[in-house]
């Protein structure tokens, strides 16, 4: 009997020590029946992409509150593409201004969530996209 589960990698790239948001989201996704691999703080784009590949996740979620999102998020998106993983659902969140959100969504991100988004909305979004 098949027992498919949505597997998600939640990662904190760069020098950013704030992971309350990432952990709250990880718990919400777990409560929605997903398997969440959390990387911990201060990871490089290389480490994140390597983990995503070995763990064979369908979703990669990045969180940044440090302001370095443009650079770091972009690197993760590029690396995933380079390695042939552009079919991964790539999402982000944190303190990210609207113009940067739009920019990142043009540059390979499926969605950047803004502060104040409810965890239910993120759960629904992931379920819809993965089951598409």
């Amino acid at each position, binding site marked *: *009997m098949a027992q498919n589960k949505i597997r998600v990698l939640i990662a904190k790239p760069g020098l950013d020590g704030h992971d309350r948001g990432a952990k709250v989201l990880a718990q919400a996704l777990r409560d929605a029946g997903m398997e969440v691999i959390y990387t911990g703080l201060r990871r490089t784009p290389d480490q994140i992409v390597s983990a995503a590949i070995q763990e064979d996740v369908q979703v990669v979620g990045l969180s940044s509150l440090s302001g370095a999102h443009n650079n770091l998020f972009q690197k993760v998106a590029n690396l995933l593409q380079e390695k042939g993983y552009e079919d991964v659902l790539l999402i982000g969140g944190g303190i990210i201004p609207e113009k940067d959100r739009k920019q990142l969504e043009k540059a390979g991100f499926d969605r950047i969530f803004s502060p104040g988004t409810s965890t239910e909305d993120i759960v629904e979004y992931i379920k819809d996209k993965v089951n598409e």
Partner: protein
Amino acid sequence: MSKQASHLARGIIQGKEKALAKGLTMVENRNDGYRELLDEIYSEVKNCPIWGLTGAPGVGKSTITNYLVDSLAKSGERIGVIAVDPTSPFSGGAILGDRVRMMDLAGKEGIFIRSMASRGALGGLSPAIMDAVSLYQAFGVDRILVETVGVGQSETDIVALADTVTVIMMPGTGDDVQTIKAGLLEIGNIFVVNKADLQGAETLTGLLQSMLSSKNSPDDWAPPVLKLIASTGQNLDKLLGEMHRHQDFLKKSNQREEKEKMRNEMALKMHLQARFQDLFLGPLLGTSEWEQAVKSIGRRERSPAYWAEKMITGSD
């Protein structure tokens, strides 16, 4: 024959990381083709030492695994890691956090780490974990490390899976009765008291030593008890040394074959159990006979034991 399974099998045997990652997902999810995949790689499975690490959450398993993998990889070995965390019985989801302590290993040549959820398996290991070991062995690793959450009282599967079992404890998690009843004493080949700078480390070490010495050890291996502080690296090299020593011991005493046989039997049993469940239990759930039985049990007419027998044999 599933085309995807053959494709993955070939990739795994050729040592392709992406194929291994996808293959692991296929066996873990029990997706179409997983049996073909396992069967096709099976002739390429090469035995290698399997080291198990178990202990309660927070005792330091991942920090210790991180050190061991790093040291072994530096000596040129290719290492496969399986890190198991519990599935929530309520939501079916899981948070797999072992990579938090192992992230320095991510992306390093020759190291493959896979986090797996227990997915409701009793005894800590699901059949998929046995199958993951086979995939690693066909992929071609020199050693496999399996890290499992030991709740302490039902961790027996790891004995069948691993050649060398290291049980990790820390001070302050209960009295001596907890240590005796835990059942961990019987499964460990090596015992570790981590966080040895905390109060109570001496007491726990002494307790373990006295209990282990009073235990008959039929196989001439006296399990050592090591005190260490994984976060600072203190005595981790000694642990690695003891693990190698146990591996040599198994080889010299011809116990590796025995372990291998035990592992094969366990894998066969787990697959049979899963099939029995699919074939026999699955179709019964929700049938009218099922509903009738549940009602009858509720009214205290007949016992669950009676109904189970009746459903299987069809007679009273």
